């Protein structure tokens, strides 16, 4: 099941040229771009691991693309996302975030039904990949 989180996630995966163009747009807006990766793509998992520090004061997307290549190298079967942080007063938040790499196989999520008091049902999502193996080995073939 293809995971759809952040911008552009209903489109086909962005090519490197397209990612470069998006990063160039972010830098043009004065946003600080950072990279994060994870192998636990639960929709409520907000805290992905940071790949280095956010990159401040960049003028050109080449620096981000270099880090992205390094991150892909180190984490070939992880989700990697590009975040663009806007520090303008009043915003002070991530303005744009999109997935720049996904694992080759995405097994998806299972809907778990749990019966509680008075036949009440509670639902939760459980990732097959996360259940299958511990962290770091979830998506490796």
């Amino acid at each position, binding site marked *: 099941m293809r995971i759809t989180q952040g911008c552009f996630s209903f489109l086909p995966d962005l090519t490197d040229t397209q990612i470069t163009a998006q990063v160039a747009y972010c830098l043009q807006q004065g946003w600080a771009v950072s990279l994060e990766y994870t192998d636990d793509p639960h929709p409520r998992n907000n805290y992905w691991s940071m790949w280095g520090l956010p990159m401040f004061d*960049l*003028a050109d*997307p080449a620096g981000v693309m270099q880090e992205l290549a390094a991150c892909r190298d180190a984490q070939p079967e992880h989700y990697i996302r590009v975040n663009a942080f806007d520090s303008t007063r009043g915003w002070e938040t991530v303005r744009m975030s999109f997935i720049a790499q996904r694992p080759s196989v995405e097994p998806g999520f299972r809907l778990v039904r749990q019966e509680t008091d008075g036949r009440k049902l509670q639902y939760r999502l459980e990732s097959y990949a996360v259940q299958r193996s511990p962290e770091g080995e979830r998506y490796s073939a």
Partner: protein
Amino acid sequence: MTASDLQHLAPPGETAPPAVEHRIDLAAEYAEAGIADVLERLDRDLVGLAPVKRRVREIAALLLVDRVRQRLGLATQAPSLHMSFTGNPGTGKTTVAMRMAEILQRLGYCRRGHVVPVTRDDLVGQYIGHTAPKTKEVLKRAMGGVLFIDEAYYLYRPENEKDYGQEAIEILLQVMENQRDDLVVILAGYAERMEHFFESNPGMKSRIAHHVDFPDYGSAELGEIAERMLAQWNYRFDPAARLAFNEYITLRRARPHFANARSIRNALDRMRMRQALRLFESGATVDALALTTLTEADVRASRQFSAAAARTLADDERDVDFDPERGTDRIDY
């Protein structure tokens, strides 16, 4: 017929010169790139520096011709653009680096054309494992523009074998080699020490294609620089002061730690202070003319004149008005 059409016409792999009718007007190409304007401003704004201007012109011409050759499908090696600027302090290395970035951008060899000036402190870390991220961060900031490393020889400290400078140099070399499209590195510093630096880092020397030497300014050129600086700040010398300033230049040049245009700027700053004090203490009403004129008295009050008569070593020590090695203050023309 456009240049891209020409490329399609040529059979793949063939680099034979195209037929005679595919002529490209170099002058038009030159005008179109908009570098004429930059070169002209370089000529106009900077006093003297004839050999430097010539070198910059040569480099610009080479890049322009290279670009035209590329469009005609003539195989050209991607030009190496890393440079080294050598010369004494205050000879305009930073200013020329800014112009160089502009030229490179107009010719399309540099995407943004911004200059990131750094020194050893910005590249080398303070403890193990600190240098690589620090250097990489600076490199990332400079991508798409020019990385200007002032006093580059400080990166290499042969007397301390545990110095982290070597690590920074290695990362730098790697990027200079692999990401030539993304980054142009300009190293700057005193001629002899740069020479020594290159001798101990042959890898660095071989990756730098253009060595530009900045000569010292002559006395007349320094006088002209002074006048331009004053004009920029809306000041001027009266005729007697101008003559006195020529004398000042002669005296100052003979003293230690003379830093060309930077020393001139500092001297002018002190003269402005003396003028302000003189006007203030005279208590009279002032008009625009008085406010803009530096008189002979303002110039002659300099310690250079009194010290010229009786000079002791202690004077020399006291008279150091800046440390050229630190290079903290910069000239803006």
